[in-house]
């Protein structure tokens, strides 16, 4: 769930759109209070426009399904307290930094793939649709091409257009 919070932050929707709370069977009052608190904070945030964030939500789904994120999720205690097979322990800060980097990378790639569902796009069009800087689009697109997930479709005038491959 921490990963979802991170991804919601990265895409600009914000982690306040989700909550994880602990209420035991004996804590009826706590349950009522928690519901009050969540309702109040969501009321302040205002309505959530799913249509407006369609691309971002689809990209988060894509990122959550990526092997890298699935392997990394929930490994924090294992790697920071017990260590890896080389008996190397990573401090929590380093782990969280890496987790964030991976989440950002996977999210941006998934976002580009989602944008490419609409048809062939140039790098500038992808940047406009996703809100990512042109340079970032170019970098991630390169990665997607190497992994065989996207490819050059052809040229429109002198502008290269890219498409999504398979899946």
């Amino acid at each position: 769930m921490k990963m979802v919070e991170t991804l919601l932050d990265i895409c600009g929707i914000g982690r306040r759109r989700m909550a994880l709370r602990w209420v035991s069977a004996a804590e009826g009052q706590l349950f009522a209070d928690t519901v009050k608190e969540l309702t109040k904070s969501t009321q302040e945030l205002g309505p959530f426009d799913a249509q407006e964030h369609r691309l971002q939500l689809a990209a988060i789904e894509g990122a959550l399904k990526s092997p890298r994120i699935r392997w990394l999720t929930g490994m924090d205690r294992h790697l920071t307290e017990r260590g890896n097979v080389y008996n190397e322990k990573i401090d929590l800060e380093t782990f969280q930094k890496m987790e964030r980097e991976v989440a950002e990378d996977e999210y941006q790639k998934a976002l580009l793939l989602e944008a490419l569902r609409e048809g062939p796009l140039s790098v500038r069009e992808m940047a406009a649709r996703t809100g990512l800087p042109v340079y970032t689009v170019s970098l991630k697109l390169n990665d997607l091409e190497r992994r065989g997930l996207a490819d050059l479709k052809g040229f429109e005038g002198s502008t290269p257009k890219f498409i999504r491959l398979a899946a």
Partner: protein
Amino acid sequence: MSDAFEAKILAFLCNWCAYAGADLAGVSRFQYPSSLRVIRTMCSGRVDPLYVIEGLKSGYDQVAVFG
């Protein structure tokens, strides 16, 4: 739709913890807002992160997981 915005929250409740807690809140007549739509799960640990995203996609204003 009415003019006043009423938050809609989708909640996943663990059968053994929060669901019983919610039951107790009801039995004890504690007042709480009606903004919650509850889905009971046998354990909050079986709630896939993808469900949270699916909830937001379906038009909820917030998705909460209660363990």
